[in-house]
């Protein structure tokens, strides 16, 4: 673990994520104000002692909304990564380990899914299932699968004929045992890196979808919703739009840095 902290990318990313995570923990128990409490006498007031980051167009406290928004981002990031990792691992390991026609068929499907650029796949799923938190999570989880499947597959293809796998096979170990007890540990660090990068893209996609009005719905606090609401008041209160923008950017940069750091420590990209 120590060697990771010597890598500057990882260290910076880790510090930012830890800080954000602390904000998230605090937001479970305490936010300065209620996230939906409106106060029309305080509309769009600049940062002050009462409201550290100012208030929005309904007089809601921006800091409180930001804290809850970060919570939503993490929730979506974590679920998308866990489901992407699980299904990607199962699909990718079967495809990479057994190869042949199974591999061809699976890869064709994955390639097809990857043909839908950016958030388009998620948008399509949302058009089918409808918007809201659960459906956004569902859409982004499905969107995360292809990336994990590809990484896992290439890892399994590399190791399936290696000596230690052959030795295990001769010893009589079953496929499942070889796949998940022996090969998996070898590609773990790569999966960690991919998880971090996927976390970043899930956060980014959620913000984008909510910005477009296709993800979370107002008055729920989400960084994307804050961004789209704030854009209308850009001339009057520029800080309002910059706060969610900078927060999203920081979160994405931090997770990307962690991913890069893990890759660098483990010797280059594949």
């Amino acid at each position, binding site marked *: 673990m120590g060697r990771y902290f010597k890598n500057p990318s990882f260290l910076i990313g880790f510090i930012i994520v830890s800080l954000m995570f602390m904000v998230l923990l605090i937001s479970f128990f305490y936010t300065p104000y209620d996230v939906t409490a409106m106060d029309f006498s305080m509309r769009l007031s600049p940062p002050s002692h009462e409201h550290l980051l100012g208030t929005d167009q309904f007089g809601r406290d921006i800091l409180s909304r930001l804290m809850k928004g970060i919570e939503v981002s993490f929730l979506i990031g974590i679920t998308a990564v866990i489901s992407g990792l699980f299904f990607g691992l199962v699909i990718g390991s079967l495809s990479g380990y057994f190869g042949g026609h199974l591999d061809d068929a699976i890869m064709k499907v994955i390639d097809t899914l990857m043909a839908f650029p950016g958030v*388009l796949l998620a948008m399509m799923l*949302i058009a089918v299932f409808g918007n809201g938190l659960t459906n956004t999570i569902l859409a982004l989880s499905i969107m995360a699968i292809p990336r994990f499947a590809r990484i896992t597959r290439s890892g399994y293809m590399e190791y399936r004929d290696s000596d230690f796998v052959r030795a295990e096979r001769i010893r009589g170990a079953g496929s499942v045992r070889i796949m998940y007890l022996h090969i998996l540990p070898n590609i773990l660090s790569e999966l960690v890196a991919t998880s971090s990068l996927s976390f970043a893209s899930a956060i980014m996609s959620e913000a984008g979808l909510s910005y477009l009005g296709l993800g979370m719905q107002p008055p729920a606090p989400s960084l994307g919703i804050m961004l789209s609401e704030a854009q209308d008041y850009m001339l009057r209160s520029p800080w309002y739009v910059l706060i969610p923008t900078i927060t999203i950017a920081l979160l994405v940069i931090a997770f990307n840095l962690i991913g890069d750091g893990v890759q660098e420590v483990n010797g280059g990209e594949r």
Partner: protein
Amino acid sequence: MRYYLRKLVGLVITLFLVSLVTFFVFQILPGDPALIILGIDADPYQVEALRASLGLGRPLSMRYLSWLTGLFSGDLGVSIRYNQSVSSLIKEGLKVTSLLALYSMVLTVLIALPVGIWLAVHSRKRYSIPVSVLSQISLSVPSFCMGIFLISIFSVRLGWLPSIGYTPLSEGLLASFKSLLLPSLSVAIGSSAVLIRYIKVSVQREEGKDYVRTARSKGLTRGRIMYTHVLKNSLIPVITTLGLLTADILGGSIIIENIFSLPGIGRLITVSIASRDLPLIQGLVLYLASIVVVCNFIVDLIYSLVDPRIRLR
């Protein structure tokens, strides 16, 4: 020849699968699509009329077939929200999106080429660190955050460029260019960071090869080796990266067009999804995904022409 045939078959299969996904994803909608589109308390006559125009009475496979044959004749159905043919809407939106994509691509290359080469040459010098860090940051900042930053600087603070809206080409080249400059810059900054990385790695890998050492021992200067030998060889793989960036640029433009209120494909798709305009969504999704598939195909072709060894794999 066999390589190209295999690639072509692959292309056709992928396009077919894409059309299959695009069509059938929208068939798992629970309930009656006509009711979903029009709302529960819609006029029953209207619902019936829509059912008939969507062909909902026929079996699924027949509907898919007629949709597919419609595709080949350029008939993607009629948009429910706009009451216009889907293909004419796409054509209209494409005027904006293709211009945006073109500007973004040109800006990407204009930024990435000099910076990437400069970074590769000077990577061991300390003064290159700020440039590396900056390109690392622009790699990570989401394009829509970049868009908002750019608006707040160039439109709100400095007032140099319009913040939102699109001026068509017919109203003057300069005005049109100005209205697309910030959006394309927001897309280009991110994608140029990707390209910079590729150029840097590619140039450095090429520099480590034996023929460079030979050239060195022959007494050529580093600059001369760089510009007469290394760059030519190392920029070939970069060309293919450009093709792959097309998907990024298209995906990025969906949100960017909304931020800058540009009436392009990305804006159209958001509106169509928000209003559950099925024929329009299907047409747009299929169109965008096909562009990506075809671009990947072209990239593979270029690659195989440039590096024939790939055909043997």
